């Protein structure tokens, strides 16, 4: 469909070891191919941003990485182990995709302890870990006397994101982390992600509609469109402009297509 010429999608860094490898990954529902990625490698410590319009396949890709859906062909492997063959990847990966990753009938503390205990932490270390988010929580989450299901959408999101950070996972997957958050929290979240990536060498996979947030946080950005990787770039100061131009071109391209259809009628 899109005739946009893009640079080669595979930039290899042989010095780093690949954390996540995606090979010939394809997902089709009936006749519709929602995702088709030939090859994608994500290095350890990379902050990987996934950008695209609605229906571009971002959540599908994450769901495939998390082995929540089955690929039609191809595979995803974490540390050279295919995710649908062994459960070993679960030790390294944590994720917050949507509210189905929250347990509504728990208080936020209980949720954090639950996740923490399964990630080998005890109550005290979880409490210690949560201290740094005091500011982010704004007094509305811990000791609020509310169950997660009764929190506002934004606060639920905070709970989910912080839950995904507990216990030093090596890979953290966040789907649309900036959506539904207030401006201050967005800024705090960006700082948090950068700190985590720098201090602990965590690999982040973040999807977003928001180009400026993504370019600020991520050191590599992949654009998907209709299930295919159309751009794969290392972030530079010009990246934001570049991306904005890409999407603007897409829009005008769409308009042209419509007008040509009209004239041909």
């Amino acid at each position, binding site marked *: 469909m899109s005739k946009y010429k893009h640079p080669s999608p595979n930039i290899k860094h042989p010095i780093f070891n690949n954390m996540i490898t995606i090979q010939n990954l394809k997902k089709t529902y009936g006749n519709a191919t929602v995702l088709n990625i030939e090859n994608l490698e994500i290095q350890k410590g990379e902050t990987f941003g996934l950008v695209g319009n609605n229906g571009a396949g971002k959540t599908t890709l994450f769901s495939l990485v998390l082995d*929540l859906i089955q690929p039609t062909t191809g595979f995803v492997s974490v540390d050279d182990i295919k995710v649908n063959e062994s459960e070993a990847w679960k030790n390294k990966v*944590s994720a917050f995709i949507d509210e189905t990753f*929250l*347990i509504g*009938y728990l208080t936020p503390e209980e949720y954090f302890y*639950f996740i923490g205990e399964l990630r080998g932490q005890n109550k005290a270390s979880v409490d210690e870990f949560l201290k740094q988010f005091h500011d982010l929580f704004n007094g509305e989450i811990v000791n609020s006397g509310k169950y997660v299901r009764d929190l506002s959408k934004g606060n639920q999101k905070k709970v989910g994101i912080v839950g995904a950070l507990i216990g030093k996972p090596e890979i953290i997957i966040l789907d649309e982390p900036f959506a539904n958050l207030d401006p201050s929290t967005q800024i705090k979240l960006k700082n948090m992600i950068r700190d985590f990536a720098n201090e602990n060498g965590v690999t982040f996979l973040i999807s977003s509609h928001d180009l400026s947030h993504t370019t600020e946080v991520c050191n590599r950005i992949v654009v998907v469109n209709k299930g295919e990787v159309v751009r794969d770039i290392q972030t530079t100061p010009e990246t934001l402009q570049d991306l904005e131009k890409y999407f603007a071109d897409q829009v005008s391209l769409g308009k042209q297509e419509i007008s040509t259809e009209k004239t041909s009628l």
Partner: protein
Amino acid sequence: MFKRFLKLEWKSFFRGSSVGLNLLMKIFRMIGIFYFIFCFAGMAFLAYFYVEKEMGENPLKMVSRFLIIAWVVDLIFKYIVQQLPTQNIKPFLTLNIPKKVVVNYTLIKTFLSPLSWMNSFFFITFCGIMLFNGYGTLNTISWFVGVSLLFYLNNFLNFLFNDKEKIAIGVGVVIAVLSLLTYYDVIPTLSYSETFFYTIFEKPYFVLIPIALFAGLWKITFNYIRKGFYLDEGLEAKKVVGKTENIDFLNRYGAIGTFINNDIRMLKRNKVTKGILLGSFMFVFYGLLMFTNKYYQTPTALMFMGLFVTGGFQFTFGQRVPSFDSAYYPLMMTLNVPYKEYIKAKWWLLNIVTVFCIVLALFYAYFGWDVYFAFFAAGLYNIGVNSQFTLWSGAYNKTQVDLNLKEKRVGQKNSFSFKALILMIPKMILPMAVYGAMNYFFGIQAAVISIAALGLLGFVLREKIFDIIIKKYKSEKYSTLEAFKKD
């Protein structure tokens, strides 16, 4: 306007996510409804002719006499089962529809549920017979209208008191006291009932009383709902204060302890699971049925009852094991816990409760030790064998459970699956057959021992069976995730 609303209802019924799969269940439900209609109509014939021919009494007087009981039962039943449709009217709030219409729609909608109109079939049939047998037309109609309005007015009472537990408890106490006083003939409630309802028949203008009550309560309920018709008032789901709690000693058992802790919180904090807990407690007393019929006292039947007495929780909770976690199943599938630990935690929870039930069932020893031994053996079988088969059949159960919805227990069991049905054979039939046969040939000791031995065998082989179950769960994983997705 109402026509359009009804169209929406129709669509929501047929386009619900479970429809395609569960059309069969819907058909069963229809059959059930017809069955009950038939029963109610049949009861009317029975009430009329049995009373007249066999007892030589006036059927209308007799029915009037017991109507008060029927009315109270109707009220209690509606309070427990009926769902109030306040939640799904939110989208109408900002549309160009007068609030008056929406409120009335909410009220009228409660009349449309089969629970509301089912009992009318009794009254319609009964009045039909009355007319046929020469009762006055005007009198009969006024009796019918009066009685029907009194029954339908329960819907309003239910609306007014549904979220006021204290009042409900108060009313419950009053009803209990009144029924005791009636039972011991202190207050002749029944003859009051007879006088009241019969008067409506005798003097048709008395029908104005129920009409006035109905209209008045409609107005009151209307105002009540109208006043709270804001998102932060009547329409908001009630919030409870969250308390952080933890059973510390369970933490010693690693991931399994964590999961059990979590499940206990789930059981305590959700409406559906609270219902399950209550239900499984009631199952402990299921064995009391044996005093209603001689047939129930055969060893095979005792075994059957024993399986339910000790395994009520196991059957009701265990069968829907992944379903209860459906709201956050993707989380469960990505946490760094092997499947086995997850299943094992459920297994422990089931068995802890089963042990508890076995101890609780000790009171059956009062009726003879052989009764308790049968139940005890059944309990061991539940622990050793059934706990695993129940979890196994859970793998095929892909019904989403909305934990905090007041579940209509009737008709909700649409988790019908043929495979689950086949698994009933080792669960129920095998122990019953073995127990019955062993008891027949070798006596009760041998029967208890052989069932216990089967339980022990299952217990010893549990790791092997877990492996099979886990394989099933894994192969069903993706379709389960898909089914649990919210639409």
